[in-house]
């Protein structure tokens, strides 16, 4: 690094003061919140408005600080060294005439931005201090000490729709029409009944006889009853034929079915 320690600049009281301040800074290096914070502290020694600050001088102060730290064998965090390198670069840019072929921000741009950053940080610090000095809740201003609880009242409303009302009524009024399911057996002649009857009768039937003649009395006239009895009679006749008790014959489709007892072999 190309700079000279600040103490070499001049011998007057200011320089001594600065030197002492710088030493204090170095001892206090842990107290700084990064290089920008340090720069801001250093800038205060210039005793001018931050807008009129000499960035070149500030860069020199910072580099002097780093040198001092080195001589005192104080390990500086990487951030501080990066800033030192950048400031050294900035310093050279500010001192040398601008290179027209060089791209990127000029030394003046860089210096202006650093000044802006310092001013912004200083402004934020000031605002932070103002904020903390305000009348604060719990310190200067107080909320109600005896707040009243807001109770909750649960209100229940009951609802019912017209449909539900009507359905309820319908349900009550139709309860009488509604009874357990029982098959209406009045007009039903079961196969068991037919079998019993046929078994008793075939003993006398030695010749072919129309099975219709086996229908029980009182079941021939009512169509409902006749239908049930005919079906059961026919089913019973098939059952007996299957058991080998009778023979069945039918002359033609839909012709009468005849039944004859089968003689035991």
């Amino acid at each position, binding site marked *: 690094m190309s700079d000279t320690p600040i103490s070499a600049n001049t011998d007057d009281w200011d320089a001594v003061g600065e030197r002492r301040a710088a030493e204090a800074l170095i001892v206090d290096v842990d107290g700084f919140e990064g290089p920008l914070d340090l720069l801001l502290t250093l800038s205060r020694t210039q005793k001018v408005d931050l807008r009129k600050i000499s960035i070149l001088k500030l860069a020199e102060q910072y580099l002097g600080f780093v040198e001092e730290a080195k001589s005192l064998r104080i390990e500086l965090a990487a951030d501080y060294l990066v800033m030192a390198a950048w400031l050294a670069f900035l310093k050279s840019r500010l001192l040398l005439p601008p290179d027209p072929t060089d791209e990127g921000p000029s030394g003046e741009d860089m210096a202006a931005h650093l000044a802006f950053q310092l001013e912004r940080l200083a402004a934020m610090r000031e605002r932070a201090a103002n904020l903390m000095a305000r009348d604060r809740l719990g310190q200067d201003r*107080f*909320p*109600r*000490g*005896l707040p*009243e*609880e*807001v*109770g*909750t*009242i*649960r*209100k*229940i*409303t*009951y*609802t*019912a*729709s*017209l*449909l*539900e*009302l*009507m*359905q*309820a*009524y*319908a*349900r*009550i*009024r*139709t*309860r009488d*029409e*509604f009874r357990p399911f029982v098959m209406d057996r009045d007009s039903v002649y079961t196969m068991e009944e037919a079998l019993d009857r046929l078994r008793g009768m075939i003993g006398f039937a030695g010749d072919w006889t129309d099975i219709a003649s086996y229908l029980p009395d009182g079941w021939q006239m009512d169509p409902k009853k006749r239908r049930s009895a005919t079906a059961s009679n026919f089913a019973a006749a098939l059952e007996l034929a299957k058991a080998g008790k009778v023979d069945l014959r039918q002359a033609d489709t839909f012709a009468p079915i005849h039944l004859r007892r089968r003689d035991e072999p």
Partner: protein
Amino acid sequence: MSDEREKTLFHAPPLGEQERMIEAMLFASAEPLNLRQMAARMPHGCDPAEALVGLRKRYEGRGVSVAKVGDAWAIRTAGDLSYLMQKETVEQRKLSRAAIETLAIIAYHQPVTRAEIEEIRGVSVSRGTVDQLIELGWVRFGRRKMTPGRPVTYVATEGFLDHFGLESARDLPGLKELREAGLLDSRAPHGLVPGPTGDDDDAQDLMDEDDTGDMFED
């Protein structure tokens, strides 16, 4: 601020200022403050009793008042505004089956006695069920019946008509219309009311009667 305090060591602050102090203290304190406590906090020479009179007057008829609690003082909500300290939550529930059936019978058969309701429903009607319908404003007492014992009757109210959107109870559809509307099919009464069969229903009703507190369905 400290200058002001120094000053007041010798000259008590004006009464209006003392009122402000008491106002702030009573507001922020977690417990009622008595005169001694107030005076201890206030600058020398203050008279909290006198300032309190002024402050109380200032809060007369306001939303809060300066109330005496034992021998101490506190700021309290005005009694007539206590309802503001409550938040109402409304919960909707369906009427129980027993209640809606009873209501239906009253609506269709009004004026109707309890005995008649029981005859139609086929189960006894618990007191709570009718009470609930009265409380809801859907049923009220009608004229007594001119029969032995002069039993009270129940009728449906205006509120009932309002709630169910009816002009009059005569507008209620009859059995015939219910059947035509498909609401009443005697061949398939199960389709009407999903759920328990008629037998369970009666059992449910009997249980309802035993425990009136638990008679509402959610």
